[in-house]
């Protein structure tokens, strides 16, 4: 299996505080993988390293075989690494359409175009419309992001990441705080996407992880303590100890 | 070709100027670091210090004025902070603009009270005249300025390093929750820091007054180096403000030898070079200001 994304020996410390130590990961293409772990395990820091918002103290990151350790976030996004954030990070005064459209490569390529009307870039409009339908926000194109409900904002958050035509989609706690309706939409969405896209999620919702994901990596206090299929992880004693019941087991299926 | 005496004089002038810059910049930086407010009125408060001293000296003598004038400026600072506090947490531009407006109004008030002309102030009798140091004659007053500046800097250093309040200020406590968790009244702390910063400006104004003539526009001239010192020295660092001030003072003093008006230019070249090599300033620390 040639991994689409792999890291070797990542280390990150803030001052004296070592947040990640010797993290070596490999994510296979077209699979839905999860990174789980108790709070403070370093999961979001890991994402920040993968997307270029932080630089590792040690170690390297390779995407499709190419060393991207030194690349800034915007370059990585252009390569197809797209990310949604744990704490909603939307363009709050932009409409749903504007939020998604600005992330579409067709518009991004024309970023320095100061003359055309933004709405006249047909390719961008079409792609954005498609994404809006995909994430279930059709009919709300012109609502400003700040006026959406929380569940809708979560879906938009993912929509913006999807708009970038990712080859690798990183989602940081996408189900956080979702009610049952948006949760269903999200599950269906993720299942549909997983076919043609590599997805890595950070999640606390074990039901989501165990039923949908192919691979699970467990982080605890900055190191990888287990990797494997959901079943193997569920039965792993070290993992259970690490969590000590802080997981949300809604329904353990199969 | 300047001889050794002239060179040394300029060098010493540079040091004195640098120490003065450091005091001004440090007060400015305390406000900037703690409340993320660019205090535009810093310069005019500097001037106000000088004017208040001018008014008080005939009545209470030089030393008392040295203490009272900055306190008066501090009082004005406290009043100002009442308005500035309404801009906390908003776009940082608003704090800047508020103090900008205050600077204009205060400068005009100075003009109304004391007139637009300049005053020359002579140093107090016990330090008038020069020191004789071997080959060199140096102004006694400037020595006093240097001494006073060092005392002020040492006091502030002690406050920052050795007191709990100072520790909080040093940490750049714009994190209200953290501060409250430590049991410190955030509002009062901000008032105190603002007042402290303005007191320092006022004090610098008092001691600088005999060196430069006192006019309403001197404030604008005094605040500009403060910006540069903070950029050069880095935000959030006591050492940076002192180092930046000294560098700037010396560059100014020395270049006056070579190109009389070029000293300003030297300041900026210095700033540009520092920014290119050390974007955060010489001793700057990563702070929330960068986010």
């Amino acid at each position, binding site marked *: 299996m040639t991994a689409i994304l792999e890291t070797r020996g990542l280390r990150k410390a803030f001052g004296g505080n070592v947040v990640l130590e010797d993290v070596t990961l490999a994510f296979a293409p077209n699979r839905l993988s999860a990174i789980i772990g108790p709070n403070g395990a370093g999961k979001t820091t890991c994402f920040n390293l993968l997307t270029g918002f932080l630089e590792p103290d040690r170690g390297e990151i390779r995407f499709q075989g190419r060393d991207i350790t030194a690349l800034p976030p*915007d370059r990585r996004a252009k390569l197809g690494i797209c990310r949604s954030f744990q704490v909603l990070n939307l363009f709050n005064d932009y409409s749903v359409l504007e939020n998604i459209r600005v992330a579409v490569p067709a518009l991004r390529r024309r970023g320095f175009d100061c003359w055309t009307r933004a709405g006249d870039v047909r390719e961008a409009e079409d792609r954005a419309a498609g994404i809006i339908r995909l994430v279930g926000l059709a009919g709300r194109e012109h*609502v400003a992001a700040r006026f959406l409900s929380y569940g809708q904002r979560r879906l938009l958050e993912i929509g913006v990441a999807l708009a970038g035509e990712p080859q690798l989609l990183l989602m940081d706690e996408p189900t956080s705080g979702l009610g049952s309706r948006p949760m269903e939409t999200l599950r269906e969405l993720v299942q549909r996407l997983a076919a043609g896209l590599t997805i890595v999620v950070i999640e606390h919702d074990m039901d989501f992880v165990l039923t949908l994901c192919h691979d699970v990596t467990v982080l605890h206090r900055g190191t990888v303590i287990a990797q494997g299929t959901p079943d193997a992880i569920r039965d792993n004693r070290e993992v259970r100890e690490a969590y000590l019941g802080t997981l949300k087991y809604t329904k353990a299926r199969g | 070709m300047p001889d050794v005496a002239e060179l040394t004089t300029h060098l010493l002038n540079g040091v004195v100027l640098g120490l003065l810059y450091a005091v001004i910049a440090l007060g400015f930086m305390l406000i900037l670091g703690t409340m993320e407010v660019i205090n535009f009125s810093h310069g005019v408060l500097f001037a106000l210090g000088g004017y208040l001293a001018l008014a008080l000296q005939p009545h209470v003598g030089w030393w008392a004025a040295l203490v009272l004038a900055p306190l008066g400026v501090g009082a004005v600072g406290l009043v100002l902070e009442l308005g500035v506090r309404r801009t906390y947490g908003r776009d940082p531009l608003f704090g800047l603009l508020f103090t900008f*407006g205050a600077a204009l109004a205060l*400068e005009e*008030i100075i003009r109304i009270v004391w007139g637009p002309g300049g005053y020359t102030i002579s140093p107090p009798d016990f330090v008038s005249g020069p020191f004789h140091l071997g080959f060199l004659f140096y102004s006694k007053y400037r020595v006093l300025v240097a001494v006073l500046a060092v005392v002020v800097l040492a006091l502030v250093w002690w406050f920052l390093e050795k007191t709990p309040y100072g520790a909080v200020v040093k940490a750049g406590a714009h994190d209200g929750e953290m501060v409250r968790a430590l049991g410190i009244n955030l509002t009062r702390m901000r008032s105190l820091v603002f007042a402290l910063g303005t007191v320092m400006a006022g004090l610098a104004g008092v001691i600088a007054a005999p060196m430069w003539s006192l006019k309403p526009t001197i404030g604008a001239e005094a605040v500009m180096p403060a910006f540069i010192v903070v950029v050069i020295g880095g935000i959030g660092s006591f050492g940076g403000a002192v180092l930046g001030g000294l560098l700037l003072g010396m560059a100014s003093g020395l270049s006056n030898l070579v190109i009389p008006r070029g000293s300003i230019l030297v300041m900026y070249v210095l700033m540009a070079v520092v920014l290119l090599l050390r974007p955060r300033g010489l001793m700057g620390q990563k702070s929330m200001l960068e986010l």
Partner: protein
Amino acid sequence: MTAWTPPAMLGVFTLFLVLPAVLPWIGGYTYLGTEVMIWAIFALGYNLLLGYTGLPAFGHGAFFGMAGYFLAVSQKWWTGGLWLPLLIGVLGTALCGAFVALFVARRRGIYFSLLTIAFGVMFWFLVFVLDTWTGGEDGLTGLLRPAIAVPGLGAVALRDNLPFYYFVYGFFVLSTVLLWRIVHSPFGQVIGAIKQSETRARAVGYDTTLYKGAVFTLSCAFAGLAGGLYSLARFGAFAEPMSLQQSGNVVLMCLIGGGFASFYGPVLGVAVFLVLRDFFSTVTDHWMLLYGLLFMAIILFLPEGILGLVQRVRRPTGFHDTGTAEAARAAETTARGSKP
């Protein structure tokens, strides 16, 4: 026609077209109108930086002022004429803007402001150091307004207020249309995104430093145009607009009018500001006190400006209308029409 100039803009253009006829009736004078348009060009370009990208540059007066010097120096000692010096004014200023952008584009917020102040002051001092070129405190006087060749009218002298007013008017119209296009273009979308979340903008693939540098330089180009016209208006280049105090003016203008909330905010702000300035200075010698107090009052009580207030009363978005609210209303009407 509306794709280029929405109705509101046509209204503004018409207003300024007939203003010279109206002004004397309301106690104004043609030169005031000229000043308003010149500062409006400056403020609209500056608002691209402040209101649209969220970059609080403070020291932009330096660019406004230096353009005058570029123009004056070219006219007096290099090319002579009108158009070329004007162009040189714009290009020279834009170049200086690009230079400063190298240092400041990486920042935002307070640190950005600090740096722009420092550079603004640098240029101010530079004027006095280079006084053989700039005339130092006296400025560079003796600027000419050569006649221009207008197709159909022959040579039109610009020395008098009225023809010069319409000369400036042409640039005012041009600038406004240009800026409107910029704001509604893909580039405009990107800078708006940067304002709302620079992190997210980077995460979706934009080199935000590059864009910030570009918009900074662009705003300086407009400052260059305005500054050049200003020096022509005054028949000379002077350091006065480059001072830190005057740099604050353009910020205040944008704020009073509601630059954060509306494209036209700066224009309204300029008009209000200049009228108030005239009014204050007739009332008292110490108008700077009133001015400073006004500044403080606006910050405390009306930070969103006049148009911001108007907008907040009319609809709650409160930020630049990039079509959102209008489209939403349109969609709403359609939906209402089709619902039972």
